């Protein structure tokens, strides 16, 4: 999908996170920049900065005074929705508005609140594998990973289970379709909006015990949320949870398919999975976020202009040898692991407990059903580029 951008001439001065080379293997690019040009700049997208060291990425994530979250997905245009709320609270919000918009959502995603979803998720994972049982080759992304987060969030929001396929496409385009023609993106957005409006109306007519009804009835500072806030938040929950978790599950399966020793170890010692899983999240962190520079300034010696982007590459932070020993190796029993796959600071992923539950259950079920599997066709593996990186096709030989 990144066809119409000119090829990158120099990664330090002209990088593009949608370039096919970045999608296929971004690690050498970041490793090089981290040592030679730790705050790279590109003229693309109206100006983008790319810090690659853990320390610098953390500093930007913590500095909500000088960097705004008004938009967190890099594109040619700048958002029209005003700060501090932005289009999809709380991810697009800045302090002080952010705090309340976030706090209201947290209890629904606490470890205790989501625990009841475990059995539901497990059963669904089994159903997915049942559907392709008997095949020698299955697609770990298309047949398995991509469906899991869709089903779980639809359940939490109280949307019809079978609607998942409908909104997965629209949602996918919002994050990964930055290169699609603007008319097509707008069209997808309108479809998503129409779908969400219909769901909201149905929930208003028939209130029930789910997240959508909760949001429709919620108040902030004694006022109901307002249609735009509710719609933005629901869209966010769909968008933030789907491609991200799908990528994490897929990347973990990809690693295990390529590393039979690690797979055998997890088959023998399933208790290691929670530790191994954190290592997969570190090494293959799927999510890169963005900020906009609030005002012209010099930051760490760099001349930053208002409304330039800063890519927050948590995946690169996680590979910084200043922070991690043997940072470029995947060590599934790494005990010290301060990775930032779920972000740092006030925007820390609200869904991190849910994502961990889904990732753990998805891997448990897959390994239980297929204790041996390998990549069937390395050329058939395609990684997404842009700000969410994971395998979009992953042919696995399971038979």
């Amino acid at each position, binding site marked *: 999908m990144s066809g119409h951008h000119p090829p990158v001439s120099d990664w330090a001065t002209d990088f593009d996170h949608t370039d096919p080379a970045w999608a296929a293997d971004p690690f050498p690019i970041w490793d090089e920049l981290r040592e030679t040009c730790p705050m790279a700049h590109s003229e693309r997208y109206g100006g983008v900065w790319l810090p690659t060291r853990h320390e610098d990425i953390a500093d930007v994530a913590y500095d909500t005074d000088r960097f705004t979250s008004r938009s967190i997905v890099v594109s040619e245009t700048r958002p029209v929705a005003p700060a501090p709320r932005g289009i999809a609270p709380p991810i697009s919000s800045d302090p002080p508005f952010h705090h309340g918009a976030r*706090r209201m959502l*947290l*209890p629904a995603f606490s470890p205790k609140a989501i625990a009841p979803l475990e059995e539901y998720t497990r059963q669904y994972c089994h159903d997915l594998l049942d559907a392709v049982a008997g095949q020698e080759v299955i697609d770990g992304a298309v047949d398995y990973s991509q469906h899991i987060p869709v089903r779980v969030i639809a359940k939490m929001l109280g949307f019809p289970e079978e609607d998942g396929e409908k909104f997965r496409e629209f949602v996918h385009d919002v994050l990964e379709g930055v290169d699609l023609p603007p008319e097509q993106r707008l069209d997808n957005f309108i479809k998503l909006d129409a779908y969400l409006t219909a769901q909201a109306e149905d929930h208003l007519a028939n209130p029930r015990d789910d997240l959508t009804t909760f949001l429709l009835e919620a108040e902030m500072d004694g006022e109901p949320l307002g249609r735009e806030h509710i719609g933005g938040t629901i869209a966010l929950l769909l968008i933030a949870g789907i491609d991200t978790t799908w990528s994490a599950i897929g990347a973990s399966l990809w690693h295990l398919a390529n590393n039979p020793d690690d797979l055998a170890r997890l088959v023998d010692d399933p208790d290691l999975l929670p530790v191994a899983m954190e290592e997969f999240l570190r090494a293959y962190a799927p999510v890169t976020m963005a900020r906009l520079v609030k005002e012209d300034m010099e930051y760490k010696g760099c001349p930053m202009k208002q409304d330039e982007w800063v890519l927050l590459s948590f995946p690169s932070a996680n590979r910084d040898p200043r922070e991690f020993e043997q940072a470029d190796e995947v060590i599934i029993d790494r005990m*010290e692991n301060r990775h930032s796959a779920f972000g740092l600071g006030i925007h820390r992923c609200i869904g991190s*407990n849910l994502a961990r539950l889904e990732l753990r259950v998805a891997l448990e079920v897959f390994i239980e059903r297929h204790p041996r599997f390998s990549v069937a066709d390395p050329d058939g593996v395609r990684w997404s580029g842009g700000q969410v990186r994971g395998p979009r096709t992953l042919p696995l030989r399971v038979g």
Partner: protein
Amino acid sequence: MRVHVDRDRCQGHNRCYALAPELFDVDDYGEATERDDGTVPPELEDKARLAAANCPEFAVVLEEDR
């Protein structure tokens, strides 16, 4: 040894609670606190160190006895 959660830094990643539930609790908002006065029994010292080494926000503070 004692553990302490720096509430200004904690962002609710829940790593401490996942790794050492004997020493930490989290509220509905994900914010962590040490249990009781944070005193770590000798057999849990390794777990306390593990929790500190896995908090992405550097919010788990250890005080070693001297």
